[in-house]
C-alpha cells in the first residue's frame, strides 16, 4: 500500500495548543498512512491526550494545519471527525453505565437509526471481528474487557478510516491484549490506519510499524519500534536513563507471619461489588508479595478488610503481628506498625483540598504523638515532616505547602508513599502503587519499597500491572471474582500463567 505512491491519510503541521501559559502541544508534526499502525508514545503529561482531542474535534488547536486526504480541514466537533472517518476508542471509557450496550452505541450514531437496527448492526460487526457482545446487556454488569469491546464496535460502526486508540491495554489481561492485537492487525490489513497511544513499550514493539515520541508537548523523535529496545525508546520518552531497580537479596523467612488471613469470606458493601470467597494468605518479614488482578475482582474489598476500613467477621480472620486484629479500627492497626496505601489517591489517601502538611497530620497523628500538643496541632512538625518526605522521594510541587489536588498523579503518589513510610513501618499494604504514574516516579516508588523490604518490612502489593509485579515481587498470586489463587515464587511462574489465573482459571481452594 505504502509503496505505491505514499499518499498520507492525515498530515499534521505545526499543531499547537496552550492552556494559559502552559504549552501542551508545541508545533507537533505527524503523518499517518493508510494501513499502518502508528504508535504515539510519551510519558503522562507529555501532551498525548491534548493532541488526540484535537484530532477528534474535542479541542481546537491554537495554530497549525490538518490535512485529511490531501485537503486542509478544521474539525469543529467530534461528530464532524466521525463524518470525516476518524474514530476514537477512549482511555477512560466514554460509556454510559445506566444504558444498554445497544443504547450506548446508538447514542453516538448520527440521525434516527432505530434501536433494533443498531442492535443488529452491532452484533454483525461484533461477529465479523470476533468481539462477542450482547446488545441488551446493561454496561455496569460487564467486565472491563467487554466494555472496551463496546467502545471498539461503536467506533467501527462509524466506518472510520483512522482509528485512534488511547491506552487501550491498560486494563486488559495478557490474553485480552492478544485478542485486541488480532483485531487491530485485521483492521490494518483492511487499509484502516491506527494511531496507537501507549506508554507500554513491549506492546508497541510487538504491534506498531512506526512510532512518534512526544515529550513535554514536542516531538522528540520517530523510530521503527522493532529496531529499538524498550530501554532505548524509554530513554527518548523520558529524556534520561530510567534507573533500574536493584533486585532484592534472598531473604530468610522467619516462622512468624506479620500478616495472616484465614478463611475470609465477605459480601461487598457496594451494589456491584465483589464477594470475597475464602481468602487465605501469609506475609513474612522481608518479602514483597504481589496480588495480580483486573480491577473490580475484589481487590478493594480485600484492601478494606486488611486496613480496617471494614471489620472482618471474626477477629482472628485478620492476624497482625500475631494478634487477632479483625475487629480493630485503622488507627489501632497503624499503631501496631502497619500502613495502608489506598488505590484512590484523591479523596481516600489524601483530602484533595487540604494542604500537604495537613494531609501528613491526618494519617500520622495517632502514631507520632509529637504532632499534637495538648488540644492543638503541631503544624511546625508537620511541615518539617513534609520537608523530609519531599526530599526523600523527590516530590515536585508548585508551592511550599500546596493543596493535595494540585499535585500531578506521580508526585502525589510519591508524597503518599513517603508519608506512610516515615516511621519505618513493619507492614505495608499498597493497592495499585504506580497506576497512572510516570516511569521515573514509578521506579522511585518501587525502589523505596524494595529498600524497606530489605530492612525487614513485609510488603503486600495489589496491582493490575504485571510488568511491575514481575519486576519486584518475590511471590505472586492472582485474584479473580473474589477468589485468591495459590501463591507461587515469581521465578517459578510466568506472565501467561498469571494472566490465565487473572481470568479466573484456577481451581480448588487456595493454599
Amino acid at each position, binding site marked *: 500500500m505504502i509503496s505505491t505512491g505514499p499518499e498520507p491519510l492525515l498530515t499534521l503541521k505545526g499543531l499547537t495548543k496552550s492552556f494559559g501559559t502552559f504549552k501542551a502541544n508545541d508545533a507537533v508534526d505527524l503523518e499517518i498512512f493508510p494501513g499502518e499502525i502508528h504508535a504515539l508514545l510519551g510519558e503522562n503529561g507529555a501532551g498525548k491526550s491534548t493532541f488526540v*482531542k484535537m484530532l477528534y*474535534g474535542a*479541542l481546537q488547536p491554537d495554530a497549525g494545519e490538518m490535512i485529511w486526504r490531501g485537503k486542509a480541514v478544521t474539525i469543529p*466537533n*467530534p461528530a464532524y471527525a466521525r463524518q470525516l472517518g476518524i474514530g476514537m476508542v477512549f482511555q477512560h471509557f466514554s460509556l*454510559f453505565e*445506566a444504558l444498554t450496550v445497544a443504547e450506548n452505541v446508538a*447514542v453516538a450514531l448520527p440521525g434516527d437509526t432505530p434501536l433494533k437496527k443498531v442492535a443488529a448492526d452491532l452484533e454483525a460487526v461484533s461477529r465479523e471481528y470476533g468481539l462477542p457482545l450482547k446488545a441488551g446487556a446493561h454496561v455496569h454488569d460487564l467486565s472491563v474487557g467487554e466494555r472496551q469491546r463496546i467502545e471498539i464496535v461503536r467506533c467501527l460502526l462509524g466506518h472510520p478510516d483512522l482509528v485512534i486508540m488511547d491506552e487501550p491495554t491498560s486494563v486488559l489481561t495478557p490474553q485480552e491484549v492478544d485478542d485486541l492485537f488480532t483485531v487491530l492487525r485485521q483492521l490494518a490489513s483492511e487499509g484502516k490506519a491506527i494511531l496507537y497511544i501507549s506508554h507500554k513499550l513491549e506492546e508497541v514493539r510487538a504491534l506498531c510499524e512506526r512510532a512518534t515520541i512526544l515529550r513535554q508537548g514536542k516531538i522528540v523523535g520517530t523510530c521503527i519500534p522493532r529496531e529499538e529496545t524498550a530501554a532505548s525508546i524509554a530513554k527518548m520518552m523520558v529524556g534520561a536513563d530510567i534507573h533500574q531497580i536493584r533486585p532484592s537479596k534472598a531473604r530468610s523467612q522467619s516462622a512468624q507471619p506479620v500478616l495472616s488471613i484465614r478463611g475470609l469470606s465477605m459480601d461487598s458493601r457496594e*451494589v456491584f461489588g465483589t464477594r470475597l470467597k475464602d481468602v487465605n494468605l501469609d506475609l513474612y518479614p522481608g518479602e514483597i508479595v504481589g496480588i495480580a488482578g483486573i480491577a473490580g475482582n475484589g481487590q478493594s474489598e480485600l484492601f478494606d478488610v486488611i486496613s480496617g476500613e471494614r471489620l472482618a467477621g471474626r477477629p482472628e480472620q485478620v492476624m497482625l503481628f500475631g494478634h487477632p486484629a479483625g475487629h480493630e479500627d485503622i488507627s489501632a492497626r497503624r499503631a501496631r506498625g502497619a500502613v495502608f496505601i489506598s488505590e484512590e489517591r484523591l479523596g481516600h489517601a489524601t483530602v484533595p483540598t487540604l494542604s500537604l502538611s495537613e494531609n501528613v497530620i491526618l494519617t500520622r497523628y495517632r502514631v507520632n504523638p509529637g504532632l499534637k500538643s495538648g488540644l492543638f496541632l503541631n503544624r511546625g512538625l508537620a511541615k518539617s515532616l513534609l520537608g523530609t518526605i519531599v526530599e526523600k522521594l523527590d516530590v515536585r510541587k508548585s508551592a511550599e505547602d500546596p493543596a493535595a489536588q494540585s499535585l500531578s498523579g506521580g508526585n502525589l503518589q510519591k508524597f503518599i508513599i513517603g508519608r506512610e513510610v516515615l516511621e519505618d513501618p513493619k507492614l505495608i499494604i499498597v493497592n495499585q502503587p504506580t497506576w497512572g504514574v510516570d516511569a521515573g516516579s514509578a521506579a522511585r516508588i518501587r525502589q523505596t519499597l524494595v529498600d524497606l523490604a530489605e530492612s525487614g518490612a513485609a510488603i503486600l502489593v495489589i496491582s493490575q500491572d504485571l510488568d511491575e509485579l514481575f519486576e519486584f515481587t518475590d511471590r505472586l498470586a492472582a485474584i479473580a471474582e473474589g477468589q485468591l489463587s495459590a501463591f507461587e515464587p515469581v521465578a517459578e511462574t510466568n506472565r501467561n500463567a498469571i494472566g490465565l489465573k487473572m481470568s479466573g482459571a484456577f481451581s480448588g481452594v487456595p493454599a
Partner: protein
Amino acid sequence: MSDATLILIQAVLLTISTAATPLLLAAIGELVVERSGVLNLGVEGMMVMGAIGGFIGMIVTGNPYIGAVVGVLFGMALSLLFAVLTLTLATNQVATGLALTILGLGLSGLIGEPYVGRSAVRMPVLNIPGLTDLPIIGRLLFGQDLIFYISIALIVGVAWFLFRTPSGLKLRAIGDNPQSAHALGIKVIRTRYLAVLFGGACAGLAGAHLSLVYTPQWTENMSAGRGWIALALVVFASWRPFRILAGAYLFGAVSIGQLHAQALGIGIPSQFLSALPYLATVIVLVLISQNRRLTLINTPASLGKSFVPDR
C-alpha cells in the same frame, strides 16, 4: 347502589384527580430536568409564578386558556433564569434552586397584590358526548378540563420520548455521564437548557391549574408546598414516568380521604391524618423502589453536578 352514592363516588374521584394533577405536572417536568442531570429545587417558585401568571392572564383577557399559556410562560421565564445561572455560569444547583423558590414566592406576592380577592373564570370542563355519562369513571376520564388531559398526555409522551426516541436517549446519556456525552459530540449544555425550560413550563402549567381550576382565585403562597412534594415524588418514583402517575394519584387520594375522615370525626388525631398522605406516599414508593439494581440504572448519576466543557 343508589344514584346518590354513585354521584358521591364520582365527586370524590374528581376531587382526587384535581388534587393530583398539579403534582403530576410539576413532577413530570422535574423528572425530565433531573434525567438530564440537573437538580432544580425551584419547582415551588416556578409553580407559584405559574399560578399568578395564569390568574393575571385570565383576568386581563377573560380567557382561562390564554391565562394558562401566560402561566406556562411565567414558569419558563423563571426556569430560564435558573438555566443561565447554573448551566452557563455553572453556579451551584442546590443553592440556585433554593434561591429560585424564594424569589418566586416573593415576586408572585408582589405582582399578585392587586389581584387578591378577585374572582376568576374557572376553566371549562370538556365533555365527550356519550363517554362522559358512563357510570363512576365517566366524568373522571372524559369530563375534565384541558389541563387534566394534557397532564396524562405528558406522562405518556415523556415516557415515549425518554425510552423510544434518539433525543431521549441522548438526554439520559447526558444525565448519566456528561463528560462522555460531550466527548461523543452530544450538545450537553443545549440539551440541559431545553430540559430546564420544559421543567419550567410544566411547573408553570401546574401553577395555572391551581389558580384556574383547583381554587379559581389568587392567594399568596397558594402553591402551599406542592412543589416540594413534586420534587420528592420524582425521587421516590425512581425517575420513572408511570410511577409518578401512581405516586401523584396515591397522594391525591389519601389527602382527600383524610379530609373526609376528619369531617366524619373519627377518633384519630387530625395531625396524624394530615400527615397521612405524605407517609403513605413515601412508604408505597419506597416499597416499589426496593430493587436497588433497577434504582441504580434509573438514577441520573450526574444529578446536581455542574458541567463545564473543556476549553
